[in-house]
């Protein structure tokens, strides 16, 4: 159960090695957090960081479980198993995602579909399984890592952008559907975040880092917000960009 300060006792991350998600978890764990479950596709790889994780997240017990976003049929069972192990899921973060190589995605049907399988399809099945559990338990907070890339899809990386647009629209609808159940959804739309996902890329304007995203998420959770942009001004920027006429939008030098 979350306590009166909104502190979760249990935190679960899908995409448990995500740099952004781990920054969020570090920000949210308190001495009253008892369990952190990191669901990741490479458990053995993650084991190598166990000591660091244990130290960073103490006194919470950290467990690593195997999770493949594309194996959507396994998600309901996985969520049930996690709940059996740790009890109520107080806070869940969906962070699995791939960026891919834009030039390849633009022309490779199979690669594009595979990216959708992770970012969108996997998100839908994972978040729905979590939502069902939230309904049963009468509470729960879900954080979905979307992206401004989905707000208006840029030609430079439209496949990724479209996958996030799908996830984002789904998460909004899920948040509405959960109204009155005690559960809630927070959609996080970061801009360019310096993580290994963006390694080697030139930072876009208003670039930020995982700790700033974490700070914004923490504030949004206690302020009961439903959607946030990180950094905040992106909200206003994109509300303008969203309404630009197509010919102008296409000519903007957006990478």
């Amino acid at each position, binding site marked *: 159960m979350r306590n009166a*300060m909104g502190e979760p006792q249990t935190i679960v991350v899908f995409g448990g090695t995500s740099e952004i998600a781990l920054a969020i978890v570090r920000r949210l764990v308190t001495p009253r957090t008892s369990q952190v479950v990191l669901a990741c596709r490479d458990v053995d790889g993650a084991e190598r960081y166990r000591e660091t994780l244990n130290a960073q997240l103490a006194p919470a017990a950290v467990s690593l479980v195997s999770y493949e976003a594309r194996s959507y049929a396994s998600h309901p069972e996985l969520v049930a198993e996690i709940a059996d192990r740790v009890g109520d899921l107080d806070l869940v973060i969906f962070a699995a995602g791939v960026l891919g190589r834009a030039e390849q995605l633009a022309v490779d049907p199979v690669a594009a579909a595979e990216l959708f399988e992770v970012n969108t399809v996997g998100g839908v099945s994972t978040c729905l399984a979590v939502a069902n559990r939230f309904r049963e338990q009468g509470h729960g907070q879900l954080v979905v890592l979307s992206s401004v890339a989905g707000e208006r899809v840029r030609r430079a990386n439209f496949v990724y952008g479209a996958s996030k647009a799908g996830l984002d629209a789904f998460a909004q609808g899920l948040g509405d559907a959960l109204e009155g159940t005690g559960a809630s959804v927070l959609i996080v739309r970061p801009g360019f975040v310096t993580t290994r996902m963006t390694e080697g890329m030139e930072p876009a304007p208003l670039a930020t880092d995982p700790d700033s995203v974490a700070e914004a998420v923490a504030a949004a959770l206690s302020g009961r917000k439903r959607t946030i942009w990180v950094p905040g001004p992106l909200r206003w920027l994109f509300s303008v960009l969203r309404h630009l006429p197509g010919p102008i939008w296409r000519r903007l030098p957006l990478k």
Partner: protein
Amino acid sequence: MERRSLSGWGRTPVSVADVIDADAVDLDRLLAGFGPRGAIARGCGRAYGDAAMNAGGTVLRLADQELVLDDATGLLRVGAGVTIDAILRESVQRGWFIPVSPGTRYVTIGGAIAANVHGKNHHRDGSFGRWVKSITMVLADGSTITVDPDSDPDLWWATIGGMGLTGVVTSAVVEMIPIETSRCLVDTVRANDLDELMAEMERGDERYRYSVAWIDLVARGARLGRGVLTSGDFARREQLEDTDPLRYDPGHLASVPAGMPNLLNRAGIKVFNEAYFRSAPRRRTDEVQPIARFFHPLDAVGNWNRLYGHRGFIQYQFVVPDEQHQVIRRAIERIVMAGRASFLAVLKRFGEADPAMLGFPMPGWTLTLDVPAVPAVLADLVVDLDEMVLEAGGRVYLAKDAVATPEMIRATYPHLERFVAVRDRVDPDRVWNSDLSRRLEL
């Protein structure tokens, strides 16, 4: 049945449950319909935290309003959903008072039993449970039984103070205390620092049946812990010149509208504390006060909990044993340092404990404070206070709690295992659950 968001009196995070208004006779039928999250009873929802909430499950409110007072013996047979307010409206004029009253009369008998509430007379009269003669309750298997302290001592002392986790109390027999008038004679002392206040309180133990101190949590330095002590007892008939000595008119509630901003901000609290302290007389004796003013001053404004704004607040109440009285000073220093002055800080003396397995009181000092639920301030404060309480061999009060950890409770409630054993016996499948029981692994 209605699916509703519920919170405790502190209005901190809500959870959703199916709320059912039930007649006692329907309970065994209802039992079959509880889902995997089970059920918990709820009274007036005056517990500050999550004791009367059950996320995803059922929350039961008792509809039945039985209230029979025997004027010859003072024994009150009362439905568990009946409030102390309703009881007093009936009993005071007939010369009987509730043996133990919390600081609000808007609590039910079920809630008073489940939290084993204490009043200003704990040092003299113990907790509520001491005055309960028998309890009728519905167990997880659907059976209705009547228990008393001798028929099943384990179940009795697990139910008294058991936070609703052994079953639903449907009615009880309570021994009322006789009063000659409905007025109290109150002595007030204004103490300029904590030592003076505590010394005054220890001296008063013998003399006064009722006693409580308010502490100014804004004052620092030499004035740290300054406060106002009020003590008293019911006036006897001959002490009043009144043609209607048992008149009782507690008045009706003024209320705070919904959606209030946080008025109890730092500046507001400071002004309030200063004004309150200054308005108290240095020393005054035998002031005549009606019951409502002496026992339930906060009830003058309904929903005052809304004054803390949408984030709500927590109430942190702890007790430390007599020999650890210095912890009270350290705790006050820590709270003053946090700069989030508490609107309400109350210091009381406790007397002997009773055998309730989850009993809160122990002979010593109990300090109660409200703090707005702003995580940035509260989180560190709670960690530090918990540590002081733990080290001192004290504990925090479950009826107020919304932030403790299972470890803290295990370390400070020595009879928790016996309590769990009783639950294993009467509720092996854990039909009775609350957000509190889940959070604290009770």
